[in-house]
């Protein structure tokens, strides 16, 4: 949160402007002060010394002028001008004396000595008139480094003396003073600054170190800096910094611990005043299923599940944007679409003006609690709606605490009435004493549940049988009994009936078996009768017809013989029909003896017999593939006799007949066997009639037969758990397919 501000401070302090550095400022300030002080002092000293020199030279010149004037007065009075000149020349021996002039009252020069350049003074003889001062006092004029002094001689009664005195010496003296002063000042300043710098270096280094320490505070983990012997204030500063560092660390640690605890427990997200997330913790990412970078920059609305109305969210937003804390439960949707519930507290952080600048959202996953609540509520409803009676009642006085609708409905009491009753009140078989004893094992924890049958009494006094599941629920304090009760009137009735049936069952089975045996016996006897009794008259008709033909044939007309032949044919056919019918019934009745049977071998036997019967036929007989099967050999032989016999029969009109027995695999892996011929075939329209007994698709004139063969085949195959079907086309042969057993 504060890292960006810290960065700012650090970058700002990294390159300080030169003049803003305290070290520089102190040095500069000290330097300037020193320079000013030393300069002023030097200037004043030099100035005073210079003035003093000037004054002393001036007074020296005046003294000289006064002496000359007083000495020259005697020579003027004595008019000894030669001595005067001598005096003037001597006086002019001072290097500073430039000229000495002596004038009378009128200004006429009568004594004049002058120095030119560095030369010696020489007398000048030149008519010159000067204008002496009007008042007889000493006058001084300074002009161009020349001090001109007028001195009256004898109160100007004898005239004036003018002395030109060079001040050039003063200047060089003054210059020398100035030069020395400045050199001294500079040396003083340099030394002072040097000392200053040396003095300041150590505290400045300490300050700089303290600054660096302070700057690194945010990442030091409670470390403190070593305090060196230094300026008192700096030392104090360092101590204070150490203290602050310690406090900062402690506070920070506290905060971090709080944050750690918060992050560990809660789902935390921080958003700005617009709701844009700029911090989410791991829990947030985990529950929402979004990676952190997808969440940052987006808002909470990304997680909306649609479970809450717009008003709900508006209310939330209004609360927090006005600076108040919002608390509530929200259902959100995570990235993979599943829903979850969070208990949510949103705390706005307000600025000085009281306006929120960020919101911190603290959430807890309450999905399971919500789910449990929902399940509980649903369970409650389901239990209440249950048709079973459910009671919750007290463990001591057995008074009903809660009852469901099933109980109300079955008993005829309303809920109020039931709440005033006890479990014993509706059980006519129990009184309180007996019931207490009965449920005691539950209370003692000796068993988990009591299951028993009893009677319940309705409000109208009638009773009905019930099945009771009673258990002690420790889920509530104090413990309660929970009973789930099933009305078993119907079950009891069913049980009674079942009992009855059971009692009579053996009798019934015996009866049925007996009947079945009788029926079977009857059937066998019937078949036997049919085979004998029906045959006897047929035999007579056929036999005597034959006898007639043989014994009296020569006496009968041709027509009569033909008729008798027909009678014989019909009786023989009827005999055949009876035979086939019996065979068919045998197929159904006989016991199965399941063995490994090679259909190929059976087919070869059948082929031999067929060839024996009709040796003249030209038939190609092909048997191929693995034809070993499980089955009843006798029945399978009968089946092959019929199928191959049919093929044999229906290829009678072919010059080169071909009969094929083989196997092929079906899509589901079952083996399918087939017998294929190139004979007369059949019309597929009537394929459904093919396997019905006595159904024929060819006339007797074309092919003989009773129409029982394929029906027999079908029964044999069905008895083996297989299936049979046929395909064919008139004049293009027929193929009969069959399977044996479902699992082959």
């Amino acid at each position, binding site marked *: 949160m504060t890292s960006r501000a810290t960065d700012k401070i650090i970058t700002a302090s990294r390159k300080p402007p030169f003049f803003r550095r305290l070290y520089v400022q102190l040095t500069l300030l000290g330097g300037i002060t020193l320079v000013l002080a030393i300069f002023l002092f030097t200037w004043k000293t030099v100035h005073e010394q210079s003035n003093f020199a000037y004054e002393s030279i001036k007074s020296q010149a005046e003294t000289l002028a006064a002496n000359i004037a007083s000495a020259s007065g005697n020579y003027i009075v004595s008019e000894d001008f030669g001595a005067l000149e001598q005096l003037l020349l001597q006086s002019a021996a001072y290097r500073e004396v430039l000229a000495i002039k002596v004038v009378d009252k009128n200004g006429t020069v009568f004594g004049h000595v002058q120095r030119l350049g560095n030369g010696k003074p020489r007398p000048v003889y030149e008519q010159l008139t000067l204008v002496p001062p009007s008042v007889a006092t000493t006058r001084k004029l300074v002009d161009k480094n020349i001090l001109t002094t007028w001195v009256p001689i004898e109160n100007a009664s004898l005239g004036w003396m003018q002395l030109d005195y060079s001040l050039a010496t003063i200047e060089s003296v003054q210059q020398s003073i100035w030069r020395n002063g400045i050199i001294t000042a500079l040396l003083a300043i340099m030394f002072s600054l040097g000392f200053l710098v040396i003095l300041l270096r150590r505290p400045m280094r300490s300050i700089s170190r303290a600054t660096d320490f302070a700057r690194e505070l945010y990442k030091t983990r409670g470390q403190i800096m070593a305090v060196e012997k230094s300026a008192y204030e700096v030392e104090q500063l360092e101590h204070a910094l150490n203290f602050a560092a310690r406090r900062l660390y402690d506070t920070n640690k506290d905060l971090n611990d709080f944050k750690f605890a918060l992050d560990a427990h809660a789902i935390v997200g921080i958003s700005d005043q617009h709701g844009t997330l700029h911090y989410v913790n791991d829990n947030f990412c985990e529950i929402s299923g979004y990676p952190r970078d997808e969440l940052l920059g987006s808002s909470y609305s990304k997680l909306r599940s649609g479970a809450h109305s717009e008003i709900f969210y508006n209310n939330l937003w209004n609360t927090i944007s006005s600076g108040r804390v919002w608390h509530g439960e929200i259902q959100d949707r995570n990235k993979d679409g599943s829903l979850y519930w969070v208990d949510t507290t949103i705390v706005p952080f307000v600025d000085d003006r009281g306006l929120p600048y960020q919101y911190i959202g603290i959430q807890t996953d309450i999905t399971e609690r919500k789910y449990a609540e929902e399940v509980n509520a649903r369970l409650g409803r389901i239990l209440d709606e249950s048709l079973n009676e459910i009671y919750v009642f007290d463990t001591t006085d057995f008074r009903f605490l809660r009852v469901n609708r099933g109980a109300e409905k079955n008993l005829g009491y309303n809920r109020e009435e039931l709440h005033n009753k006890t479990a014993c009140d509706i059980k006519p078989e129990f009184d309180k004493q007996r019931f207490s004893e009965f449920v005691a094992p539950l209370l003692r924890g000796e068993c988990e549940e009591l299951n028993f049958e009893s009677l319940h009494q309705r409000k109208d006094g009638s009773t009905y049988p019930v099945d009771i599941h009673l258990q002690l629920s420790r889920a509530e304090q104090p413990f309660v009994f929970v009973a789930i009760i099933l009305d078993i009137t119907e079950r009891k009735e069913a049980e009674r009936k079942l009992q009855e049936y059971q009692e009579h069952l053996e009798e019934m089975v015996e009866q049925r078996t007996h009947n079945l045996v009788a029926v079977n016996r009857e059937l066998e006897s019937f078949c*036997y009768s049919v085979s*004998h009794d029906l*045959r006897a008259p047929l*035999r*007579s008709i056929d*036999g005597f017809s034959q*006898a007639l033909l*043989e014994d009296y044939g020569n006496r009968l007309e041709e027509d009569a013989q033909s008729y008798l032949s027909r009678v014989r044919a019909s009786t023989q056919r009827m005999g055949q029909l009876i035979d086939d019918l*019996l065979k068919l019934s045998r197929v159904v009745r006989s016991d199965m003896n399941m063995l490994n049977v090679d259909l190929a071998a059976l087919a070869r036997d059948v082929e031999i017999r067929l060839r024996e019967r009709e040796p003249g036929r030209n038939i190609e007989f092909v048997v191929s593939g693995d034809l070993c099967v499980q089955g009843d050999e006798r029945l399978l032989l009968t089946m092959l006799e019929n199928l191959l016999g049919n093929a044999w029969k229906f290829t009678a009109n072919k010059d080169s007949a071909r009969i094929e027995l083989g196997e092929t695999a079906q899509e589901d892996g079952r083996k399918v066997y087939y017998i294929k011929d190139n004979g007369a075939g059949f019309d597929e329209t009537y394929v459904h009639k093919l396997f019905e007994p006595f159904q024929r698709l060819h006339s007797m004139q074309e092919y003989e037969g009773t129409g029982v063969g394929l029906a027999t085949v079908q029964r044999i195959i069905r008895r083996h758990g297989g299936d049979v079907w046929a395909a064919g086309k008139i004049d293009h042969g027929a193929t009969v397919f069959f399977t044996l057993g479902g699992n082959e």
Partner: protein
Amino acid sequence: MSITNTKILLVEDNPDDEELTLRALRHHNIANDLVIARDGVEALDYLFTTGKYADKDPDEFPQVVLLDLKLPKIDGLEVLKKMRADERTKCLPVVVLTSSNEEKDIVDSYNFGANSYVRKPVDFVQFIAAAEQLGMYWLVLNQSPVDI
């Protein structure tokens, strides 16, 4: 067994069948004497010289018995059983006459000791085959055994 004994016992209740059988044998010149028994009791009387045939020579036995199974009073299988139980008739050849190929009859017959079976109506060809099977080829030679 006496070489002069060339009788055939036909046990048959149906007169039509009896007639047709007689005719078939006659037509093929089987000369043996035929004794007809019309039910099981008669057959046993003849064989064991009892009842109606009490006067018969007790040592006289037919060469072969043609036995129908469905008979009044005592049925064919019962007769067969009794024959096989008696020392005198234990080895007497018995050809069972069946009205169909109903195999139960055939199996039962063999179980009770029948030597062969012929399907009715008894036709010559079948009869010969059965006789051959029984090793009684001489029977069908149209020769009187006396002559042999």
